[in-house]
């Protein structure tokens, strides 16, 4: 080590270690977004049930009249007894704030709790 910078190597190692820790933390925290998310089922304006988006499965949310499926962090209306089945045709949703509506049965299935990216989806 030089006389002017007695701890040069140690300083460089410290700087690199701090920067690397920052990068690692950034990636870890980014991954946290989806894990916090869940699916909220509402009947009219009341919350009926809540499911974690992390737990894959097929769930009856309305006495057999509406069934949702959660897979890979997304949810869709798997089946419904309504006449037009628009809710089923809407397919998968995954973004915080997105929702699927079964109008005749007055059921709303909404993604919530995660890192919201949009207020509305058209």
């Amino acid at each position: 080590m030089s006389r002017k910078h007695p701890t040069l190597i140690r300083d460089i190692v410290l700087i690199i270690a701090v920067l690397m820790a920052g990068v690692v933390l950034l990636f870890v925290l980014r991954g946290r977004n989806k894990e916090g998310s869940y699916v909220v089922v509402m009947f009219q304006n009341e919350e009926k049930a809540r499911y974690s988006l992390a737990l894959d499965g097929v769930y009856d949310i309305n006495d057999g009249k509406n069934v949702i499926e959660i897979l890979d962090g997304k949810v869709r209306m798997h089946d419904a007894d309504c006449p037009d089945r628009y809710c089923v045709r809407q397919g998968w949703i995954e973004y915080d704030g997105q929702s699927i509506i079964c109008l005749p049965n007055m059921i709303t299935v909404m993604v919530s709790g995660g890192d919201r990216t949009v207020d509305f989806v058209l």
Partner: protein
Amino acid sequence: MHLKCRRAVTAVLLFLLLMLVSCSRKTPQAAVRSEVFYSYFDTVSEISSYAGDSEEAFRKNAASVSALLEHWHRMLDIYHEYDGMNNLCTVNMRAGGEPVPVDRDLIDFVLYAKDMCTLTSGEMDISLGAVLRLWHEARNAEASYLPSDEQLSDAYRHVGFDRLEIDTQACTLRLSDPLASMDPGALGKGYAAEEAAQMLISEGITGYVINLGGNIRCIGTKADGSPWITGIRDPENPEKLAVTLKISDCSCVTSGGYERFFSVNGVRYAHIIDKDTLYPAVGFSSVSVVCKDSALADTLSTALFCMSYEDGLSLVSSLDDVQALWILDDGSLRYTKGFGLAILKT
């Protein structure tokens, strides 16, 4: 390194690390309050407040919006009549008969619709009812079918605002042609949303959003001054977003064939009928319009969906403060300059 210097560098680095960790992508602030309605305009509607107002104030505003939406839902309903009022269903049913006395605001609606028909050269036309009825029946039959060309051209002979007698003095409406009918579907939601917004604005309310079946009308900005972030679906992959954009104090409406459609022999048909072909419109996957007035946005998104890109762009350019996005069938995007400025991500 000098000890003080090293400490300073460490402090700065740790500070930067902290910033890196806490400064994630700016996340939209969730609505403080919201209420959903299922009974209006055959779709789901939602009123939300980002104004930070009290529960009591919000519920009162939500109740007035609900009452107003119910009023317009009934006025513009062409499938049911309601006690104590003459609505569009009444006017349609008495076509060829006596003039029907109606409320002043229905007269205003029809006059506005007539202006919009002229503005869009007939691409948004509430007098298209006779043709739209054929498609409504075809779509909703046990097994969907396509109306015949003969049926469609016959029906088209009973279209046109010249058949609608609007008496602004006596406050009556009369269809002179017994086979003509009105269908306000292309304009109703936007018009009602704007009426609701104007009511809130006249009471000094800001920071609210009315979402009438995907017809967004936001008032002002959120309480912290930030805009709302809207995502427009990629029609080919509806679970993905084609575009996200910032909006404030304006309306955003999208017309597309990817939500309400029907199929015949494996071919998908949109629900928007093009008056030039009398068939469901083709050419775009979706069209989105951003402008202040919701009724205008609804009108234009329907019209643009049925027009060529060049004609649509020409129309939009001729109007003040109207922005639009076209998503073509091949997935490519075209948008006006102002729309581009509002885009966050494509």
